[in-house]
């Protein structure tokens, strides 16, 4: 997978914690759950292991 960028989303109710990641993967913007069974999240973790960074939520 080709990951161009990744940014955390916070809980909309109380803005207290990260609940998902919005990432551009293979040219498509996906909202990705923080779940290691999810193929996109696994790819993002590998992308981070390669030295990339997930941007903080707004």
């Amino acid at each position, binding site marked *: 997978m*080709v990951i161009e960028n990744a940014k955390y989303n916070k809980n*909309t109710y109380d803005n207290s914690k990260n*609940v*998902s990641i919005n990432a551009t993967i293979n040219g498509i913007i996906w*909202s990705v*759950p923080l*779940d290691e*069974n999810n193929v996109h999240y696994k790819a993002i973790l590998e992308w981070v292991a390669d030295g990339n960074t997930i941007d903080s939520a707004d």
Partner: protein
Amino acid sequence: MSNARKLADNLPLTGAFSNRNIIINGAMQVSQRHGTSSVTVAPSDHYVVDRFKIQDYSDATFSSQQVGDAPTGFMHSSKLTVTGTDTSLGTTQYQRFLQPIEGSNVSHLKWGYGAMAKTVTLSFYVKSSLTGTFSVFCFNNSANRSFISTYTISSANTWEKKTVTITGDQSGAWLSNTGVGMYLGWSLGTGTNFQTSTLNAWDASFKMASTSQVNLAGTNGATWQITGVQLELGSKASEFEHESVGITLSKSQRYFYKETTVSTDTGGKLGVCSGGNTLVIDHALPVQMRAKPSVSLTNANLRCGDTVAQGFTTTSGTVSLNTYAGSASVTYILGGFSGMTSYRTYLTEPDGTSTGTVQFEAEF
């Protein structure tokens, strides 16, 4: 030949009389992502039809498409066409077409359980503009148990049925959960690091092809098509088991689900404006997905309305997962609207202009 003999010859030797096929969408009939559109495959992963993907890790490029050209008894096939060549694959480069099979769907094979391991047989119809020796492969989730066999395409541009029997692997670790229990696929060209001369036997390493193989990507415009893929218990290939499209669609939606863009099919989804012109929607999925899915929009043109007014539209819609995102039901947030009233209930209303809908991905 008596009718009894004909009947006996066509019965499976092992396993059930129905629901025999471990493969999902073997007739290539469900294509939620692209329909019958041709899609360019740049080097990366890419699903052609549901559950079958091409992985191009070479310098070649392909187009992929669900097409109506198929052998007698079938309506569809998956077609790959070389649009940019790679005549000299690097040692670790490859192109392959495969289906990852969920562990819970192959746990009954008992692979990795010594003498309990059961033999399976793969059958498929294939057609290529190139003749010669091609490879099929099977390997486990850790990619340290591989089984390679070959098939020969004798006549160019002619549908041929091929059969490969895979003896059950008595060793190795084979997942039986929601992870990948088995990768089953077809090499379209594989670099030397992943080639082997050990055929029709298990190898304790990662291999995908014979040392003797056709490199499809070596010929510009070369085509390769496949359909009628069946993997079943036993050492004999029975006739392909056609199933209703509704069953195949339901099986496929465990891994990918896309709302149609036809409003009369999709219907509306009720949600509540949570403030800031965002709409929170709880969406019960048609089947429980393999894992919590990722979500994206098919396009950014969205439309919704409330009990007072229709037609809140945006051409810059967004979707984000909310806290309550599960594998059976997903709560997501649509954004990009303006003029909405907080805490009012809205209904998504896709139409001929605002065709954006949500798609859910829980593949491997």
